[in-house]
């Protein structure tokens, strides 16, 4: 077993993405804490230009794993190529960012290798070189400390924003780049991926709104959305929503805020009856001010709130609308 920390640098459409650098930051920190060395790995077909970009990060080397069958991402292709590399190098940790792509193949990779994968972590505690990973459970109501029990290699992914791109250490000189051919034949890839696309142009662009009043499942029924609309009108803002509200058709999809919806940063974001799951938070935590009204004091939304009210939104919002109207009139 080596002391290598292998970092998976995700590329999308032949571009190194922010999650890739966040994974590099995580890998560098783990290496510093465990006395290991960092190797960055990028997969694809003819991606050596990406390797030189990655080589700017401090590491003991960048490994380019290439095959024509890796030209487009598929779980079969990626899991097979990485399994080959991991079997031969026997790293101690393999570090990922918890992206849609990683969710799609990393559990398969772990199962193929017969090793553990602790997914979607916020960070870790270092107990004399033994790493205990921290992750959210019960949609953010609690945190759990989780440790690996079997043999290394250990696979671990970190939630977006757990490590920062700007904390990546740059090397004094570019790291060395080596290229290996992946053992993936075209007929071993069973799925055929199509192009990425977006649905027809969205009717509302919430990214420009100065005030957003967003509703979550705490609004209880579609007819109650009118209350939120009145608050939005009083504030001169737009309506937004958590995913379940759009899933249920209570508001159109283009009002959805979060990892699978829009990312917004208004001056004021009002969260009414929204628990604040990470997938929602990533879409709104850049807001200048957040007012959260939620009857559960433990709701994770309060972690990103400037102003908080623990209570029933149906008791708070009507007088709030009233007071805002008064203030505007006066």
């Amino acid at each position, binding site marked *: 077993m080596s002391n290598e920390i292998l970092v998976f640098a995700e590329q999308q459409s032949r571009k190194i993405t922010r999650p890739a650098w966040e994974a590099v930051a995580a890998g560098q920190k783990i290496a510093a804490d465990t006395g290991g060395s960092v190797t960055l790995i990028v997969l694809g077909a003819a991606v050596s230009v990406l390797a030189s970009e990655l080589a700017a990060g401090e590491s003991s080397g960048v490994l380019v794993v290439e095959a024509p069958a890796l030209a487009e991402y598929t779980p079969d292709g990626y899991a097979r190529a990485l399994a080959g590399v991991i079997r031969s190098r026997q790293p101690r940790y393999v570090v990922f960012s918890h992206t849609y792509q990683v969710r799609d193949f990393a559990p398969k990779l772990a199962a193929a290798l017969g090793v553990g994968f602790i997914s979607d972590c916020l960070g870790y505690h270092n107990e004399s070189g033994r790493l205990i990973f921290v992750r959210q459970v019960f949609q953010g109501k609690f945190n*759990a400390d989780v440790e690996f029990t079997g043999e290394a290699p250990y696979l671990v992914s970190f939630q977006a924003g757990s490590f920062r791109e700007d904390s990546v250490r740059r090397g004094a000189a570019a790291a060395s780049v080596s290229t290996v051919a992946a053992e993936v034949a075209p007929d071993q890839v069973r799925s055929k991926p199509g192009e990425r696309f977006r649905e027809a142009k969205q009717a509302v662009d919430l990214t420009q709104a100065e005030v957003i009043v967003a509703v979550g499942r705490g609004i209880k029924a579609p007819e109650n959305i009118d209350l939120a609309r009145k608050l939005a009108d009083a504030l001169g803002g737009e309506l937004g929503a958590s995913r379940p509200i759009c899933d249920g058709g209570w508001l159109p999809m283009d009002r959805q805020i979060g990892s699978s919806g829009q990312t917004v940063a208004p001056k004021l974001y009002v969260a009414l009856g929204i628990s604040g799951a990470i997938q929602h938070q990533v879409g709104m935590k850049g807001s200048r001010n957040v007012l959260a009204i939620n009857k559960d004091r433990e709701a994770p939304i309060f972690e990103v709130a400037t102003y908080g009210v623990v209570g029933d939104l149906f008791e708070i919002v009507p007088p709030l609308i009233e007071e805002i109207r008064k203030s505007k009139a006066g």
Partner: protein
Amino acid sequence: MKIVVCLKQVPARDSLLRLNPAGTWIQETDISFEVNEPDIYALEEALRLKESQGGEVVVCSLGPARAQQAIKEALAKGADRALHLDDPAFAGLDSFGVARVMARALETEKPDLIVTGLQSDDFGAAQTGVILAELLDLPHSTIIMAIEVQGGAIKVKRELEAGFFQFIELPLPALLTIQSGINKPRYATLKGIMAAKNKPLKKLSLADLGLLAGDLAPKQRITRVYVPEKRANTEFFEGSGKDIAAKLVDKLKNEARIL
């Protein structure tokens, strides 16, 4: 088409969750359980495929006796039969262990399609379906928002970040993890509830599946569960609705400068 749906029971959304005395999980007594949300959508998708393609829908749930409630709901909505994987040795398994047991139970079923939820609302590993696909050597795709059958293959719509999607073609048999919102789930009818009483429900234990406890050795272990530390700088407002409203308006006007 033979479709297997994996259903997990999780604590009901509005339960007041408390930690167990050891601080290693939640206290599971005195709370109610419900079917994991995306799994409800997965079941609906399976029922619709059966209605358009013919075939049968088999429900598979691993959990203690209470999991039969989830199974009965699925049978009442129209699933044809169920496998209940229940053994004291199955308590507290990680995703790998759960997938290992399910793989053994489904080996002989040879379904054309397996659908799972994309993630459980309790531990939230988002791994079980994908591991199961690997153990059964099936192609898979995750976070699916539409399924179209094209002869011996399927074309699925996979959700990507930030409002992007992608179509993917897969040969059958295959496994898909389903995202909430893919369809409008149905409710059980009274007739369905009556019919469910006579539908086959097979219980399978560790021994029935020819497994040994050692086969399910965990690859990860929870050492502690706790309330996360709160960010200290949220300013909370208390009082009557009217008091709070007045204080908030003051803040919005003089501090946030919105009004």
